[in-house]
């Protein structure tokens, strides 16, 4: 029995995969709490997809160098986040339409760029769905450093983000710099997207951002509890997902996301059953 649980971790690549996916899951869950509370799920999904052309350019220029890819991902992500944010204020079409157009266009550009390379099917699938088993120690350092920075700022400005997310008018009458904090939150989301690229890929990233907080919101009533529960659920999804991936040999990113989804469905079932029994 113990053997069953320990066996995957005798491989270094599995240890790195676990560390990376747990760190990413925790950062995603905590940043994602604001994405859920502010109704920005579509924005988060779009943002993840828009970094593909940047990653593709980095890939074409520097080949397989992970460090370089990360910086390209981070740069594109921040640029897209602030760009979409600014566009929303001035758009001639509805906000979600504008986001959809940019998101699909950028994504197609990314696919087109990557398709110029011969081995593109494999590489593209890594960008789309992640390659957590290929995490290097350099990746771990980048995830750890930027993840810690992101969480640090989230906690440092906890009360400001709380006020701005709950009631922007109050934030304005308290004379908080609302625009600065909104943009800071977008930059933190962009950073989260960049560090998650390797683990779950652009196509599945939104699940890591919104599913654990959504599950946690089913049974928590205060923000600190919601964030902690979301982080725990995210980390547990990463761990269980990697076990599934190891023993059933399915793609690890998909396994992690499916585990998180299962937690959500379970939570939904439990809360609706308890709600019904309370009514009786």
């Amino acid at each position, binding site marked *: 029995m113990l053997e069953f649980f320990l066996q995957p971790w005798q491989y270094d690549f599995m240890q790195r995969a676990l560390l990376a996916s747990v760190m990413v899951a925790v950062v995603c869950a905590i940043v994602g709490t604001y994405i859920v*509370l502010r109704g920005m799920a579509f924005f988060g999904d779009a943002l993840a997809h828009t970094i593909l052309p940047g990653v593709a350019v980095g890939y074409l220029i520097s080949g397989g160098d992970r460090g370089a890819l990360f910086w390209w991902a981070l740069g594109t992500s921040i640029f897209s986040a602030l760009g979409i944010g600014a566009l929303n204020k001035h758009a001639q079409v509805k906000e979600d339409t504008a986001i959809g157009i940019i998101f699909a266009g950028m994504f197609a550009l990314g696919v087109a760029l990557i398709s110029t390379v011969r081995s593109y099917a494999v590489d593209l699938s890594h960008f789309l769905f992640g390659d957590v088993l290929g995490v290097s120690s350099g990746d771990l350092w980048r995830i750890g450093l930027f993840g810690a920075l992101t969480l640090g700022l989230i906690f*440092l400005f906890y*009360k*400001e983000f*709380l*006020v701005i*997310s*709950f*009631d922007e*008018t*109050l934030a*304005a*009458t*308290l*004379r*908080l*710099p609302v625009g600065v904090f909104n943009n800071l939150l977008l930059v933190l989301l962009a950073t989260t997207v960049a560090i998650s690229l390797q683990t779950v890929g652009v196509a599945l990233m939104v699940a890591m951002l919104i599913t654990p907080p959504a599950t946690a*919101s089913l049974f*928590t*009533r*205060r*923000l600190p*509890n*919601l964030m902690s529960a979301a982080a725990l659920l995210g980390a547990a999804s990463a761990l269980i997902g990697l076990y599934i991936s190891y023993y059933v040999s399915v793609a690890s990113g998909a396994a992690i996301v499916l585990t998180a989804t299962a937690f959500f469905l379970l939570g939904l079932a439990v809360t609706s059953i308890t709600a019904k029994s309370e009514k009786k």
Partner: protein
Amino acid sequence: MTPHSSLHPEAQHDHEQPILDVHNLSVHYTGHTALQNITFHLHIGERVAVVGPNGAGKSTLFKVIAGVQPPSGGAVSIFGSQPSGHACIGYVPQRSQVDWRFPVSVEDVVMMGRVARMGLFGLPRQADRERVRAALETVRLLPMAQRQIAQLSGGQQQRMFIARALAQEAELMLMDEPLTGLDSPSQEGLLELLDTLQQQRVTLLVATHDLQQAAEHFDKILLLNRRLIAFGQPAYALAPEKLTLAYGSSLQTVDTSCCGEEHLHA
């Protein structure tokens, strides 16, 4: 006044000046005019109902006074300086504008009123907690402090936002339709709370649909329909010819002498 948020030091209060002075204010959106040439002023402790039909510009007026939205023309000043320099303006939102599932307790929401005073990296201090406690006590919500906000009744939700404005040490409170959708005991409770606020010298600007309530419970009426139709005591501002100007001819008159049973709803 305690020092707070170093990013935005609060403007000085010139108490020689009225608490609110609106001069020739206009707000234009692309294609239409929301407010045109509005001029009036309020003194400390006044209690004014803002009435007018839907789309009359009540919410826009509040946003400009709160310094959340810039005017297209004219000027608003709070104790002699621009509203954007003041953290003493409390905005009490319409209940329909609030996300009630948000994971915060009543106490959390009231504590939000202290955020500017805590400064950029500050945490709640003893003084902040005491303010919050006192505010909750004033609105009689202390026993509910730990509840999630969706668990409050409509009247309690409204009182929670007033407590938040008290915690903010607001001297001018702007309330957007606070009585709308409340049952009559809750309305009574809220009107009593307005008395308490007035005793504490808080200046109140309250948007309402209910002309009868406006006539009975407010010192002055500001009758608005994009332009300022009338500003003054109820008997003057709610006179039939004024109401016709604001609402068109579709409205009966209001009994401004006193207290009819039927509540006229605009």
